[in-house]
């Protein structure tokens, strides 16, 4: 496990992942990896080899991190999509949409760190609905997934709740308000996206 230096409390996920290192100077500019994503990646979303390659925590890893990040087009696109919804106001869809909450966008970024390790045909695409909730989807002949990231209920020590509807191998699957703690995917979701 990579060592964490100079830990500081993280707003929004306090109590779940209580510490995070300050981003190395220039790391965000190089990789665009946000704090929530880095947290999830650090805790378990990335395989050790990927973590080493993406070691934004060490100065000499900065360039490697940039190469690793930009080489994953799916990840870059999903992070950019989430970023495009940061700080938007209600009505961002030109109609009556609600503004997404920062904590659900943070949770969505954490989910990306895990989905990234799924097979390419199981990685879902993110969007935000007019209800302001981020959701992931995939729509293939043998696999349909619609997963909504919902705010956690207070008090709670999870990052968010996840509700999903899926069709896999002809079976309809529905799970409601499954807690997501940021440290791993819920096992049933992990199985759904064929994470080893």
């Amino acid at each position, binding site marked *: 496990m990579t060592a964490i230096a100079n830990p500081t409390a993280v707003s929004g996920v306090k109590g779940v992942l209580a510490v995070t290192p300050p981003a190395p100077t220039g790391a965000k500019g190089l990789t665009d990896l946000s704090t929530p994503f880095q947290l999830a990646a650090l805790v378990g979303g990335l395989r050790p080899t990927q973590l080493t390659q993406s070691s934004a925590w060490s100065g000499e890893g900065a360039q490697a991190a940039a190469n690793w990040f930009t080489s994953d087009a799916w990840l870059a696109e999903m992070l950019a*999509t989430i970023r*495009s*919804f940061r*700080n*938007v*106001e*209600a*009505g*961002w*869809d*030109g*109609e*009556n949409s609600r503004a997404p909450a920062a904590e659900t966008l943070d949770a969505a970024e954490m989910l990306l760190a895990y989905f990234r390790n799924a097979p390419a045909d199981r990685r*879902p*695409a*993110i*969007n*935000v*609905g*007019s*209800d302001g*909730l981020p*959701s992931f*989807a*995939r*729509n*293939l002949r043998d696999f*349909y997934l*619609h997963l*909504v990231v919902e705010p956690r209920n207070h008090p709670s020590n999870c990052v968010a709740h996840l*509700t999903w*509807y899926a*069709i896999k191998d002809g079976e*309809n699957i*529905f799970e*409601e*308000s499954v807690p997501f703690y940021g440290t791993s995917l819920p096992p049933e979701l992990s199985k759904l996206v064929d994470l080893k």
Partner: protein
Amino acid sequence: MSCENCRAAFAHANDDERARKFDEAAPRPCGCEKYRVSPHSPGPVTDDEVLCLLVSDPQMIVDGWLHPSKLANFDTSGQSVLREAAADNEFENTMAELVSRSKERGKHRWCLGVLRFPVHAVRYCASDRFLCVYDTGMEHKPFHADLMCGPLVPDGATGGQLKRARMELAREVITALGREIVGPSDFRSGLLMRFSKAS
């Protein structure tokens, strides 16, 4: 009288309650479809018409199909579409409004294309009724229409039952809508090109 009730539902002030009001306005499912509910509309939407849904974000498409997050309002405010008979300026004005309003709220978007689908594809599922299609024309958008449905779960159902019903409906609607997306350069000889990302 149903016709007056339907027009009252159309004029209902709370957008999120409009689908329910339409459902309550007529004695049978989608009963308001046979009336001209908007004074600005040219008339009820017929089964042989084609509807157009403006696709204004690349994130709205996944694997060639609409992203289900776009389809969550059928039992509340409804899903806006334009009837294909709409004039060019109705399409242009609608896209211009979406783009400018979004920009004012901090979201940049552009025209990815227009999803075309026949009315009958969303009105019927085999011989059963599916979505209701109402002629909700406005003063400057007479060919505006809305896709709606009645309550998806009975009163007293849990939140989870409602979520599941909405997600299952979204999946069925996505399939019914199909994936005939006409790009901005091909739609009406490039009518919406100035809203494309390339412009």
